[in-house]
């Protein structure tokens, strides 16, 4: 069985922060096509605040996610604060401070993050939002686990589903958020939230991969 140490898992959160910082301009550009062009700025503000907060502490993976969630909750308004804030807070609270996180624990975290969203948003697959990445990712990961694949393989499946989900948003008409006002005109470009969600899950998978140990 494969797992990673919660205690030494902070690099995963740091990788997530870095990918948002590195793609700030790119994300805003995508948002600019059919939204108001601030998605990169919004995300970067929250993730960078998190980076600063983490520097002053010696956090575990779950604590890192909790800090990220807290900061999005308290510092980022609009829609990204509550959506990503909920995902990360719920993920952080899903498992009771285990020393090691295996694929079952990680699946429980994904499930909890999505369950939390249920209370605040309505978007489903096909609505051109970050749910087009998040839900297929969870499905791919849980399918792999059900099929007996190992953590590493399940993460690979998840990343593949993320990319496919993100790219599928190009052909969709936005039904939630700012770009939904454009109706048909929203078709033809990526959804910004889907793009950031894909980046975050990719960074998470890569970060976990690097820390995975056979136990």
């Amino acid at each position, binding site marked *: 069985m494969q797992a990673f140490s919660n205690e030494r898992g902070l690099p995963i959160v740091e990788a997530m922060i870095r990918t948002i910082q590195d793609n700030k301009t790119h994300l805003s550009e995508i948002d600019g096509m059919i939204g*108001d*062009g601030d998605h990169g700025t919004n995300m970067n503000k929250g993730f960078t605040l998190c980076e600063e907060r983490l520097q002053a502490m010696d956090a575990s993976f779950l604590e890192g996610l909790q800090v990220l969630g807290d900061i999005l*909750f*308290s*510092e*980022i*308004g*609009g*829609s990204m*604060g*509550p*959506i990503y*804030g*909920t995902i990360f807070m719920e993920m952080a609270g899903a498992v009771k401070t285990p020393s090691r996180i295996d694929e079952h624990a990680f699946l429980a975290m994904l499930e909890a993050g999505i369950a939390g969203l249920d*209370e*605040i*948003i309505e978007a489903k697959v096909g609505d051109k939002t970050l749910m087009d990445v998040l839900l297929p990712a969870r499905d791919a990961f849980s399918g792999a686990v059900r099929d007996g694949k190992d953590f590493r393989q399940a993460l690979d499946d998840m990343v593949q589903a993320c990319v496919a989900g993100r790219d599928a948003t190009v052909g969709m008409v936005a039904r*939630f*958020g700012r770009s939904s*006002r454009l109706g048909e005109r929203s078709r033809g470009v990526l959804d910004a939230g889907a793009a950031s969600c894909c980046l975050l899950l990719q960074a998470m998978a890569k970060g976990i991969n690097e820390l995975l140990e056979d136990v």
Partner: protein
Amino acid sequence: MQRIINRPDYVVEDMLKGFLKAHSDLVVATSNSRVVRAVGDTEGRVGVVTGGGSGHKPAFIGYLGRGMVDAVAVGEVFSSPTAGAFLDAFREANGGKGVACLYGNYSGDNMNVKLAMKMAKREGIEIRTVVANDDVASAPKGQSEKRRGVAGEILMWKVGGAKAASGATLDEVIAVAQKAIDQTKSIGIGLSPCTLPAVGHPNFEIQEGTMEVGIGHHGEPGIAVHTLESANVMAEKMLDVILPDQPFSEGDEVAVLVSGLGATPVMELYILFGEVEEKLKEKGIRISRSYVGNYFTSLEMMGVTLTLMKLDDELKACLDAEADTVGLKSFPGKHSV
């Protein structure tokens, strides 16, 4: 961009600094820099909270004060406040009898309020909401859950705030605020775009010589772009949408709120009001309360919103109750008839 600002990314901070100093008789800062509360406490009565993006002055913080709103969550310009700010606003407004969160139907606000409510519940604070959806142009009649909240929110706050101040229960406050917004319909006409200081250029367009009927408070597209018409025709076009929607009909008594969007001279708001009054009179609808001015703005947008509320005795009593806020002061027994 001909603006009076310091740092484009910190206009909200800089504005709050001035606001808190200017109105220290009415409002106070809290431990959360994005939450402002009214002076005085809510001990033993229902607290009233609202919140929303900045750039709509006097909304939202301008309606803090005796007889209206107790705490406000303040967002960035045209962007929902954080869930944390709503939560802290709930804490500030909680006097042990629960909190009525009366806010507008925008997806960011909806999410942040819901998340904050979840947290508040854990602390044992009882929160109930009324979501304003008075903008009839923002979705068809059957889909009122998709409609945005605009200037009608002010009447909802006034009514809910008066009820809370009277010592009513949370159920009663929520019921009357819900009735207030259910009986209130609004529509806007946009004549020019506005520029967010941090962006530096308008993010939508209104061609000279045209008007956007049904525009939203952040420049959300309306239902039709027409050639610019006279005030008379504007009033007609707005009433044509509002009246059948409620419906408002002969014999009804209404409150009318004409709010400028920021840059339209107030003189013109009165010209529009004059036309609305005439048309309503022709239809046998009687205006018994009227509000004309810049009550709910969109930075320096030119244009106007027209709001009608169908009155009954309870709503009238709540509108007339004493209130003392920056944006709306009313003396007991003083009102337009």
